């Protein structure tokens, strides 16, 4: 009896030893900063002095037009990127699913590569493509007979252009996940539908889409969270311009902290970003979640 208690304790000690490094790292680099961020959001904090100012940072931000604009822009990016990414990926995956292994991995790879390439490098090449003087974009628009616009110089076209760049990096993961998930749908379901005379599109809408709903939920949440954190393209391609027209929440956070040295206010921006992401994720969860079994 005693012996088994000792053995049990020994086992627990080993288990805790194995998780200890993760727990410490998590505590120091996630938990502590997370709560510290909340704390700092109530301070006028400029690295040297910190004064408690209650909710002033929050009320200041709500009155700050630049910040409100960045929230609107961020939502515009999400609206442009997330649905198009999901729809595009689900269609591509269902087209390639019954093709040869070679075709499948080529297509998956081609769509995934931009996601492994440094976002900085991609932004730089896109910057060249969008360049109003020597860019390929201008040339192609000319050929297509589209009137000259400075793609990154107008808010509307800049948001679309940046969303497109983000889109090209976002589709890789969903395509891989969807093809894996599609492989798990029993062939018999499609056969049965085929016997009942369902067309390809009907089968796609009535079988594929509903059965992939849990996967779609997961992917939509990930894609939304990622798009809410759009930063690199904005910093490198437009620096938030024209006139704050493409600035995002994270870009505002970075600027407020590391250009204006207002760390308290920047923490508040971080907290607001977190709240928005949390609420959106919960809404998506409510809307998209169902128990699907097959």
């Amino acid at each position, binding site marked *: 009896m005693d012996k088994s208690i000792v053995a049990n304790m020994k086992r*627990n000690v*080993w*288990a805790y030893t*194995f*998780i200890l490094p*993760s*727990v410490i*790292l*998590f505590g*120091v*680099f*996630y*938990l*502590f900063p*997370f709560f*510290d*961020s909340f704390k*700092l959001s109530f301070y006028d904090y400029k690295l040297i002095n910190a004064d408690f100012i209650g909710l002033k940072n929050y009320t200041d931000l709500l009155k700050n037009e630049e910040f409100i604009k960045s929230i609107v822009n961020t939502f515009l990016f999400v609206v442009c990127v997330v649905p198009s990414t999901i729809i595009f990926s689900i269609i*591509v995956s269902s*087209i390639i699913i019954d*093709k040869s292994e070679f*075709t499948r991995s080529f*297509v*998956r*790879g*081609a*769509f*995934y*590569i*931009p996601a*492994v*390439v*440094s976002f*900085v*490098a*991609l932004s*730089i*090449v896109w910057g*060249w493509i969008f360049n109003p003087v*020597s860019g*390929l974009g201008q*040339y192609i628009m000319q050929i297509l007979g589209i009137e000259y616009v400075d793609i990154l110089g107008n808010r509307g076209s800049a948001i679309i252009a940046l969303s497109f760049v983000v889109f*090209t990096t976002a*589709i890789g993961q969903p395509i891989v996940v969807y093809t*894996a*998930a599609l492989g798990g749908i029993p062939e018999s379901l499609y056969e049965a539908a085929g016997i009942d005379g369902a067309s*390809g599109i009907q089968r796609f809408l009535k079988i594929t889409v509903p059965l992939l709903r849990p996967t779609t939920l997961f*992917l939509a949440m990930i894609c939304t*969270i990622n798009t809410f*954190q759009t*930063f*690199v393209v904005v910093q*490198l391609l437009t620096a938030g311009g024209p006139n704050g027209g493409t600035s995002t929440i994270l870009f505002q956070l*970075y600027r407020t*902290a590391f250009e204006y040295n207002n760390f308290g206010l*920047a923490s508040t921006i*971080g907290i607001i*970003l*977190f709240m928005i*992401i949390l609420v959106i994720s919960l809404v998506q969860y409510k809307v998209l979640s169902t128990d699907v079994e097959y």
Partner: protein
Amino acid sequence: MSTKKNSKRKCVSYTVGIIVVIALALINLFPIYWMISGSFKTNAAARKIPPQWFPLTPTLENYTELFKANSAVRWTFNSFVIAIVTMILVCFVSSMAGYAFAKKNFPFKNIIFWILMSGMMVPYQIMLIPLFKLMSVWHMVNTYAGVVLPAIAFPFGLFLIRQFIQTIPNELLEAARIDGCSEIRTFANIVIPVSMPGIAALAIFSFVNSWNDYLWQLVIIKSNEMKTLPLGVASLQASRIPNISSLMAGASVASIPMIIIFILFQKYFTKGITMGAVKG
């Protein structure tokens, strides 16, 4: 008759579908082609309109200039050091904890696990300022340690490895215990080798993540000497009237290692992505 017609129509639409998909896949790769081919053009050729679709007079000048005039050698070195060290530590820490969470029972196991996993939902960007503050206090701003340490805490990695280790049969571990293997030997000689495919997937992920990280490095790295490739290349763009073709050379140096890794290890990427996506 009608089924025959139907299947013919289906065949046509299938072929059209796959051709369109392949065309789009190639278009998706075009910016990368444009970057690499641009890096072999002279600056004048790169600025030509109508554009040169291939570098007609290919030159290596941009690369020699990049490595001579800038600290690009140092940036490349920094990128490799940071990515490799991060990768090793992430794998080590994650597989230890992943093993315990997958195969051991201990008080508060589930609570601790889900607290750790909640980190996946919190974007690290919102912790940018407290982390920077912490690193200032510890005098780790502009050091390798400052770049690497926060990146080791990687909840997704722990999740991935736990998923993988759960698939190892308990009998295997039981047998080791009966043979009198110590905990550490069981872990090192059985768990690690058997979970190598999972660890490899995680290794590749964390390497690529760390190589491509930008925001944290932008915040924590202050000197030109400490920059990684993405930071260095970004600073080239900001510094002077950018020479397009040498910018492309910089961007290529930052990208090509990742493309090679991807092509070599595509299997592991697919595995890691799908494993992370399936609920455990």
